[in-house]
């Protein structure tokens, strides 16, 4: 016989550390992005490109502008475009996913989802590249475009999560109570899929940030001398060996933003009970 009498004490460690780290990582770039533009003064005189000192404590960039000023100004487009694109993607994906999960009409579900399946086969960067060369979109266009390539995947995830909830008796119970479609879809199903959606949103935001940064890096949707972190990384890359700050600071801010948003999502996921 073996004695089994071990005492276990459950360690209930809240994901606070992770949360705090994530918050800091997101907070710094976010604050810079949103508040930065409010704090900058007018542009000073241009200095020679890629120099350090002379009042420019992060040096100058490829056209001799102050890097710190560009950092303050350059967050907003990245962050706003990324957030808008994510929001837009869900704006379409949510109703499409919800309707196709809740409907009993096969044709409706097929009409909604099949075109998206087709879109899935288009390599996203190729799509962005071509569409952007055709329409030369501004920031708004870029946000729309990035949202567009994210819709199929987001819609599939919404649909899968919603279909899971919709197959549960609770939805049928609501229907037996005569609840309206809206209340069932939004009030119950929508609410129940919030958690998986939040997790997906975090990952998607990372992907969108990546796409926005890469698009900006490829010169799509933004002027090549724009105050934009991703553009800064690209355009100042040539001076990496002369004046690294012009690349390193915006690059770190982008990385911090993505890492932080992922950590926050992880923390949010952990708080809830694992299903």
């Amino acid at each position, binding site marked *: *016989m073996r*004695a*089994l009498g071990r005492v276990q004490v459950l360690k209930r460690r809240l994901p606070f550390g992770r949360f705090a780290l994530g918050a800091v990582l997101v907070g710094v770039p976010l604050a810079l992005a949103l508040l930065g533009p409010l704090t900058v003064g007018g542009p000073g005189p241009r200095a020679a490109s890629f120099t350090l000192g002379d009042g420019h404590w992060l040096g100058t960039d490829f056209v001799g502008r102050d890097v710190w000023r560009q950092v303050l100004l350059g967050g907003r487009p990245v962050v706003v475009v990324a957030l808008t694109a994510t929001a837009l993607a869900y704006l379409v994906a949510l109703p499409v996913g919800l309707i196709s999960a809740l409907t009993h009409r096969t044709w409706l579900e097929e009409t909604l989802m099949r075109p998206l399946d087709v879109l899935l086969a288009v390599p996203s960067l190729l799509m962005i590249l071509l569409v952007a060369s055709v329409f030369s979109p501004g920031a708004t266009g870029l946000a729309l475009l990035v949202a567009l390539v994210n819709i199929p995947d987001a819609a599939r995830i919404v649909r899968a999560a919603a279909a899971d909830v919709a197959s549960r*008796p*609770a939805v049928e*119970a609501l*229907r*037996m*109570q005569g609840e309206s479609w809206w209340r069932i879809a939004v009030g119950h199903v929508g*609410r129940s899929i919030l958690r998986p959606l939040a997790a997906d949103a975090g990952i998607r935001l990372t992907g969108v940030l990546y796409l926005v940064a890469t698009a900006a890096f490829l010169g799509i949707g933004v002027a090549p001398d724009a105050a934009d972190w991703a553009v800064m990384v690209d355009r100042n890359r040539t001076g990496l060996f002369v004046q690294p700050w012009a690349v390193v600071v915006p690059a770190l801010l982008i990385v911090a933003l993505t890492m932080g948003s992922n950590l926050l999502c992880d923390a949010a996921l952990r708080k809830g009970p694992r299903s």
Partner: protein
Amino acid sequence: MNGPGESGGTGETGEPLAVAEIEGLTVEVGGRHIVDGVSLRVLPGQVTALVGASGSGKTTTGRALLGEFPPGARVEGSVRVADALVGYVPQHPATVLNPARRVGALLHDIARTQVRELPRRDRRPAAREQVLTALEAAQLPDGEALLRRYPHQLSGGQQQRLVLAQALLLGARVVVADEPTTGQDALTRRRVVDELAAVAARGIGVVLLSHDLETVRALADEVLVMRDGQVVEAGPVERVWRAPAHPWTRQLLAVREPLADAARQGPRPEAVLRVQGLRARHRPGVEVLRVPELAVHPGECLAVLGRSGSGKTTLARCLAGLHRTYEGEVLLDGVPLPRSLRDRGRDRLAAVQYVFQDARASFDEHRPVLDQVARTAVRLRGVATSEARAAASTTLNSLGLSDESAARLPALLSGGELQRAALARALLARPRVLVCDEITSGLDTVTRRGLLDLLAGLLRDRDDLCLVLITHDLDTARLATRIAVLDGGEVVEQGPARDVLTAPAHPFTVSLVQSSEELAARSSGRLAGQV
């Protein structure tokens, strides 16, 4: 055994040595004692039953034999088992079967641990041999083909036998069976009883955790009655049945009066709900249900009796408007009901209500129960919210659910409480037909009895209400005035409850009634023989 002597033989006292032993087990979680000072001996070849309501601590005790405790538990006392491992048969065997692996994978891995001593070359065939033997012992013939299947391709019975085979293959000296018959129809229950008896006959100590008293009575040698983590009474099963010492045991064992003949005399009024030429499909081409004619009359309780897969739930869902792919008609007061709920107006929606088998899953986990119940009155009766809440509160109270409980989130309520709440939610619509789908099957004896009494009371109090009870359980069906028996999607027999139960006509009904009686007879016979 760590103690003196080896297991299996006879000790100095002449008594067989226990294959497992629990002494003074106390399990504390978050300051609450879920098991409190339980002691237990499992003898080889004997069936030891732990009975009690849910939450009585019987599962925790059984799991302790497996060396498993709830997370964060403080454990005191000792648990000792014979050096071989303990087999485990859970209530739902599917949960312990790996959905991504073929059936053979785990069996072979278990067998491999048994054949380590053999030369490497011989291990493979030896292991295979052992697996096939174990499958045969667990009454699973055609093992070769079975090994290549995935768990979801097996029937529930096969899954359960497979889990038994794993325990046998392991060479377990003790098998813990957790609620193996709960929610099963009479035929299945009888089969499970046979299987477990066969296991015990192999000299294995069986620990049976169950609230199915009939099974316990048919199978167990020793019984321990648990309540709130403590053993309130223990002893040989015949003694406990014959002379329960503890009041709780008496309450548990109290035999329910068979329902007095509820069939009312006099001319039968026009049917409230009538089914005509119903043929229901799941996917195109797969017909699962054929009901040419079925009627429910006012004040009547119709039981639809059948095993799982017989189509009884589909029938219920057709009535309620939850299943739409069918031909034929469901008539309410002679007028066809639209197939889809959306097309049923408020009144007709309210007229036919449905109570789900899984009460917990039928509630939104984010809103308090009371709010959810009250919505019925708001939506289906057009009552203002405050008024609806008051009505909901009244109904819930009448079903034995306090306002305090009702104000909580569903997660904080027990299964029985939620089922009452679900009932209240449906009743608030003032339905004329209430369809109850297996609403008692997951509940322990005491709770189930309470719920059935409640239904009987409803029938008595509300003349306009008729019940459709979907069940696999003959006991539950006794509540009904009429019974329709479903098998393989066909109505094989219908008629007054008494006739169907006492003089079944169709062979299937006959076998169903017989196995139930046999089970009862066996338990009482055993008792009689041993006395």
